[in-house]
């Protein structure tokens, strides 16, 4: 089991919900991201999703689109994101997961990417536009380097397919909370609880829920039935609104702490098992 699986298993054991913040690497520049991630971990992040910016993020709403544009403008590339992980690794002991789009990984080359990601210390990857049917060889390449390919499941996913995704994912299954692109939403779509229950029916794999999650109340509610919560756009909105990089780090850390607080007391997914 990789660092990601171990971490989620330990949290489930303790009855604690996992908080996984998402930040786009290089937004507004890589120096800020390098300061930001350890601060998020200190504030209670159990793992961090690091967005690799792409020119055409068709699974993302306006917040992450704009974060990607800012990151690309500041010269961020997949190679530089891997350097970022390498720099962070000695200082950060939580799992670090890259999230991005297939074209960047394929352009580097499957095997080249797997080798570089392992040497940087990447624990997992999430590729938005790469279902398992198409990802077979890339996922095999990264698994061979002890990196978890985390698969996504959606509210539209059939039960039969959910069982397959739960079987083939590594680390955790990322359940998308809504039918739509990423982005903060005022209310939580509770249809997700049913999706997670369908996963639980066939599998023991940790389930984390993301997309649209924007408030501590959302996180608390999700922790009643899932192992963890991913928060991206709502965090990026706070970073983008801050008047300076230092203020951005402070605002992000404060927000992460507020999201994590209810998860400590939640009883977590263990409560339903």
């Amino acid at each position, binding site marked *: 089991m990789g660092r990601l699986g171990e971490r989620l298993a330990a949290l489930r054991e303790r009855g604690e919900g996992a908080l996984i913040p998402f930040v786009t690497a290089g937004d507004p520049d890589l120096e800020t991201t390098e300061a930001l991630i350890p601060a998020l971990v200190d504030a209670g992040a159990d793992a961090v999703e690091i967005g690799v910016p*792409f*020119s*055409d*993020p*068709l*699974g*993302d*709403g306006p917040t992450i*689109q704009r974060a990607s544009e800012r990151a*690309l403008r500041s010269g961020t*590339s*997949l*190679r530089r994101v891997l350097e970022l992980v390498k720099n962070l690794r000695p200082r950060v002991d939580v799992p670090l997961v890259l999230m991005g*789009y*297939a*074209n*960047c*990984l*394929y*352009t*580097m080359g499957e095997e080249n990417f797997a080798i570089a990601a392992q040497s940087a210390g990447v624990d997992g990857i999430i590729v*938005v*536009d*790469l*279902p398992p*049917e*198409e990802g077979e060889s890339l996922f095999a390449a990264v698994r061979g380097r002890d990196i978890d390919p985390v*698969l*996504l*499941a*959606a*509210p*539209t*996913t*059939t039960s039969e*397919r959910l069982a397959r*995704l739960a079987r083939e994912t590594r680390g955790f299954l990322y359940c*998308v909370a809504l*039918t*739509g*692109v990423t982005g903060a939403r005022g209310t939580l779509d509770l249809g997700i609880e049913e999706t997670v229950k369908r996963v639980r029916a066939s599998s023991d794999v940790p389930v984390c829920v993301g997309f649209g999650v924007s408030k501590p109340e959302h996180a608390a509610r999700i922790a009643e039935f899932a192992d963890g919560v991913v928060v991206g756009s709502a965090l990026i909105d706070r970073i983008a609104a801050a008047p300076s990089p230092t203020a951005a780090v402070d605002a992000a850390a404060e927000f992460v702490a507020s999201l994590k607080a209810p998860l400590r007391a939640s009883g977590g997914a263990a409560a339903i098992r």
Partner: protein
Amino acid sequence: MKSEADSRGHFGEYGGRFVPETLTTALDQLEEAYARIAFSDEFRSELDGLLHSYAGRPTPLYCARSLSSDLGATVYLKREDLAHTGAHKINNVLGQCLLARYMGKTRVIAETGAGQHGVATATSCALMGLQCEVYMGEHDTQRQALNLFRMELLGARVHTVSSGSRTLKDATNEAMRDWVTNVRTTYYCIGSVMGPHPYPTLVRDFQRVIGLETRRQILDLEGRIPDVLMACVGGGSNAMGLFHPFLDDDGVRMIGVEAAGEGLDSGRHGAAIGAGVPGVLHGMRSLLLSDDDGQIFPAHSISAGLDYPSVGPEHAYLAGIGRAEYVSATDEEALDAFVYLSRAEGIIPALESAHAIAHARKFVPSLPKDALVVINLSGRGDKDAPLVRELLAARRSEKH
């Protein structure tokens, strides 16, 4: 030879289905519905009826006498410009909108570059009583203002896309985002032989009518099939529609003409086959314009319909195995060809189609005199007239 995708939509190493998980079930359903509905007698006869009485098919195969004598071979033009809405796009859209109706979808979305696909979709939706929303890049709404107005006149809601390069690529991103969000009620009517499986196959099948008619017509007129087929390629639906029914005819050369923009060396072009690399965009693996970090760089073409950084996966495949050839024509050459065809034949071509004419002017003179060439005139040029007028005026003032 057979050019058919495998069961998961792969043409060799290209094609496939690279989409967010939310869309997987919808694509499965579309694939299933297409196989079940589109080949039924009821659907076929309804679609054939519409293609005939509404879209004006069969379109003529016209022997272009001035072009033939000027270029030194027999040149026919397949007159898709005479189809309803002024381009071949209607063939695909009538098929897809009918499919959407059979599937019980009430809302149709589309992306558009030049606006021809958007107009065709708005038209079909008006005809069939479907709600229509079209995504169009801001840059394209400016250079194709007439088509924007036509879509609105037809009752469609047009969303102006101001992200990225503000062209077809970004309109496609936005249409995909809409579909991810509204997938349960919405049919995504893709305008070319691109996108995730089954779209490249489905759109090709609906466009094959171009090649099937051409085969019948040329046999009637000349008693033999052509030596050369030529068509412009952006996503590549008009070219694929013409080429596909002839793929097994070894003697038929097929030439796709991409947009060379300001020249392949300039970095400002739309030649995904001529200058692209393998990669993944908009749900498919194909050839595309991508830098060494995997970022897509904006295409450029004088013609909004060819201003796209990738190409349909079956074209990438046919290029790879050498069954079809792909060349390119620059903005300047296309502009010259636009004027040339207008004067020579009294036919004002779309700037997209003018790329095929431009290459024909260079290439056909190298053929034997008895060669038989069919060029797909994919659309008419009314929509381009304001832009061409400006460009020609700019040219004249440069000369003085």
